[in-house]
């Protein structure tokens, strides 16, 4: 079993228009037996990173250590890594069973053990009925399960999974994620899980790395990333529905520093500690972030401050209600649990905790913290 460590890793692609940087100065450590997920929008460099670890792509600059050994020049097979891809990469002239068995046969594993392993993995992923079908006869979700089965059936030191369940129906996804976690616990394999879906990332791993524009933005647990996003991108990317983002002016009103949102009557009062910091930085403007889940329809404590908005959309979602409110030109959303008789076009008072306000620098978009 092995740890994975990337030191100052770059990936360039040369094209007609010049050099494209797919991964920039990446430093990432995945401990032995750990599952880490790499989360980011499409084109952020997460798949390139995974392919470099697998040995399918060369590393343009920097060092890759697997189990503490410099592995830049090892072949994919020497790295003992199992891969599952989003686009399946199955052998279409073989049956499901043959696809799964192939790498085991190549390793000269005894046939009776292969049969046993295939039985286990196919039950786990719910594909035992289709083992004798050709892969061309399968739906996208089924093909993806076969691809995942082929990776899971091996006994590698590292699993690299690239959007392995994106085509599988929602109800089944969480079951499969639970199985992936179980494999990690039982066999102590190191895993890197690449996805654009934050729910999957949170469900499968404790530690999450967030990438954008070829760079690693932040690494941390779900709570760290959710409660203390390092910049505006992370704040906006993590959390559903997305964080409310408002541009505001920092002004003084009756000796109190307030954040006045542009083109509307919304005013937020930041914590005193933050006000000091704003003074130090000599800022006149800031970007304010507040999560829809951190705005409440009832006052929960007398420390809470309030704002007002007019209800534009009431979105009933079963377990929750998503409200879209408006003040002047600014729209913002509030997420609450089902109840309360909301009325469209009605003004309502809403409450927030000062320590839940996120402030970002208007130019650098980095978080302003004490």
């Amino acid at each position, binding site marked *: 079993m092995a740890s994975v460590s990337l030191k100052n890793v770059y990936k360039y692609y040369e094209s007609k228009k010049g050099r494209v940087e797919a991964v920039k100065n990446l430093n990432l450590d995945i401990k032995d037996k750990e599952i880490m997920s790499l989360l980011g929008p499409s084109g952020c460099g997460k798949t390139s990173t995974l392919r470099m670890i697998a040995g399918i792509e060369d590393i343009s600059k920097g060092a890759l250590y697997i189990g503490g050994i410099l592995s830049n020049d090892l072949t994919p097979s020497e790295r003992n890594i199992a891969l599952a891809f989003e686009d399946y990469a199955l052998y279409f002239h073989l049956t499901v069973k043959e696809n799964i068995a192939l790498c085991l046969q190549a390793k000269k594993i005894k046939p009776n053990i292969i049969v046993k392993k295939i039985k286990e993995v196919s039950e786990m992923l719910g594909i035992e009925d289709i083992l004798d079908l050709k892969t061309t006869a399968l739906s996208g979700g089924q093909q993806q399960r076969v691809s995942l089965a082929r990776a899971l059936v091996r006994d590698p030191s590292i699993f690299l999974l690239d959007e392995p369940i994106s085509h599988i*129906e929602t109800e089944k996804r969480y079951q499969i994620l639970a199985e992936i976690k179980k494999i990690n616990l039982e066999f102590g394999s190191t895993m890197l899980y690449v996805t*654009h879906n934050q729910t999957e990332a949170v469900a499968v791993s404790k530690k999450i790395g967030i990438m954008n524009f070829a760079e690693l933005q932040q690494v941390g647990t779900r*709570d760290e990333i959710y409660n203390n996003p390092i910049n505006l991108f992370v704040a906006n990317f993590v959390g559903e*529905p997305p964080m409310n983002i408002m541009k505001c002016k920092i002004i003084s009103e009756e000796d109190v520093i307030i954040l006045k949102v542009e083109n509307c009557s919304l005013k937020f009062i930041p914590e005193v500690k933050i006000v000091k910091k704003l003074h130090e930085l000599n800022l006149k403007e800031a970007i304010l972030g507040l999560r829809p889940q951190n705005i409440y329809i009832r006052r929960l404590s007398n420390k809470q401050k309030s704002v007002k908005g007019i209800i534009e959309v009431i979105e009933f*979602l079963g377990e929750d209600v998503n409200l879209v409110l408006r003040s002047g030109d600014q729209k913002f959303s509030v997420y609450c649990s089902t109840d309360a008789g909301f009325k469209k076009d009605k003004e309502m008072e809403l409450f927030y905790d000062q320590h839940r306000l996120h402030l970002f620098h208007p130019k650098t978009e980095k978080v302003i913290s004490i």
Partner: protein
Amino acid sequence: MPRISLENVTKKFKELVALNNLSFEIKDGEFFVILGPSGAGKTTFLKVIAGLEIPENGKIYFDGNLINHVATPNRDVALTFENYSLYPHFTVFNNIATPLKSSVQKNKYNKKQIQEKVDKLTKMLSINHLLNRLPSELSGGQKQRVALGRALIKEPQVLLLDEPLAHVDAKIRNQLRTEFHFLKEKFRTTTIYTTHDYKEAISLGDRMMVLNKGGIEQIGIPEIIYNFPKNTKVALAVGWPEINLFDCTVDFENSQLYCPKGDFVFNISSNVLKHLKIYGKSEYIVGIRPHYIGFSDKPSDTYSVKAICGTPEVLDNQLVFFAKVKNLDLNISTHDPDLSLKYEQELWLGFDDQSLIFFDKETNENIKLKE
């Protein structure tokens, strides 16, 4: 905008019954959502309304006029496809303008009018800045808007949307779903919208239908479908985590329910008991949604059922976990993601009888609807 009525509509593909004897009405200007898993018959239904498939049996009326034999171009409907089906070699502008230039329109619009119409609509859809791009240069969410623009440009009487949000990622889905609320108020076209995502259905539908294997399970406003599902299938089709369903026997003397699988009893109020007495049976399938199960770390009158907590996970703003009561696994969720629960911790559960749904054990039908 027409009212759409169906009478005993059946559509078969050889032996397979895709739509089974559907009779119902979609109101004038209504936003009607069809919820069902893949293979339920959603797309076939839209094609039948559009005239792309001819039903074997039954009648379809627009505003009382039989349209079974009216050809697609004369029905004044617009259909968007799940995979967008944009012309890859046309710009966004030309993709959207195509319906206005088609032979059916007989040169009704001159160049300037087309320009104006596309301009106005694309502003509404926030794709005005993309008019000169090719589909390959657009994101999934943008392609969906272009497809929508092409459907809306000729101001159809009936808009048919086939899984419009199925292929955009979660973030954009959230955003577009909210935008549909604005769009539906602006256009007020009779719209039929299909989806396999229950959140879309209950969020957007003025009314919705749960379709299963070509047959109607239930039609109603979303709140009714969610809170008063007609049977266990509907109950399972809406809500996540899935509703808990378990068998219970009523002990009429002690006002209690007994669950054999979990080997526990809990009290129910005289009101509920009366209702069950009137219905006349003593065994039911009881349904309770995961967020209605109360729990505490100490036993009390309210929280009386002992359970063992599984691994808690934060998913979509909810803290979700299994609780094991003997052989019964219960899904439980709460909106407080910061709550600290430990794996294998002891918990005490409480079931508020107001949130219980009772189903007949033989028919799986909700007993309340039978009144």
